């Protein structure tokens, strides 16, 4: 089962993890991305490409379901403005055994970074700046090809 959502609403961790456990899996792995307060950042703003984003995340989830023996994949990404400490992204995977769940979870967050049309803007008080893409993210995504 695949659950994909792009929403300004906060991510409810306990509810999402419980839903994955209900898939009857032996193992559930998850990754949560949280807004960091590095360098005086006070808030983060996420923009996306409506329509394409949903397709890109569903394609990633389907690819992971095919590649590992998964019983469930959840990908949630917030958009809009969020404060330091708030959750931005949640990836959850359910599988019969830990290795599939953990590997698929790492794959999904690495590929989401390069394959989904989101853009981040950092706010420091009243000043905003767009975040630049990092070569290390490109390299992390590349590692899963082949």
């Amino acid at each position, binding site marked *: 089962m695949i659950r994909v959502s792009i929403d300004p609403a906060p991510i409810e961790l306990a509810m999402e993890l419980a839903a994955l456990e209900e898939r009857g899996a032996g193992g559930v792995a998850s990754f949560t*991305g949280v807004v960091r307060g590095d360098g005086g950042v006070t808030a983060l703003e*996420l*923009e*996306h*490409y409506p*329509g*394409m984003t949903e*397709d890109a995340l569903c394609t990633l989830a389907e690819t992971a379901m095919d590649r590992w023996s998964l019983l469930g994949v959840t990908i949630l*990404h917030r958009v809009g403005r969020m404060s330091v400490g708030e959750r*931005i*992204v949640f990836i959850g995977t359910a599988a019969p055994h830990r290795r599939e769940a953990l590997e698929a979870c790492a794959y999904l*967050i690495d590929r*989401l*970074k*390069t*394959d*989904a*049309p*989101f*853009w*981040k*803007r950092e706010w420091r008080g009243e000043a905003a700046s*767009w*975040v*630049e*893409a990092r070569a290390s*993210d490109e390299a992390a995504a590349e590692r899963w090809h082949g």
Partner: protein
Amino acid sequence: MELLYFAWVREAVGVGQERVDPPEAVYNVADLICWLAEQSPGHAAAFADPTKLRAAIDQRFVPLDTPLGNAKEVALFPPVTGG
């Protein structure tokens, strides 16, 4: 064709979406970027450096040398930074 802009590309151009009818010589995405750069000072600022831009045709990521063909929707934006 319908053009969509995101992040600082949208801000530089001043709109998130516009309809354009480029001349026939505009064959691929890179040609489109060059042509757009001549349309206004805002466009010039957004499209001066194609190496900073990425594209999608009909909601699929494509390299800049991809022919436009019968594209209905072309999106131009900086490299993505989600997650």
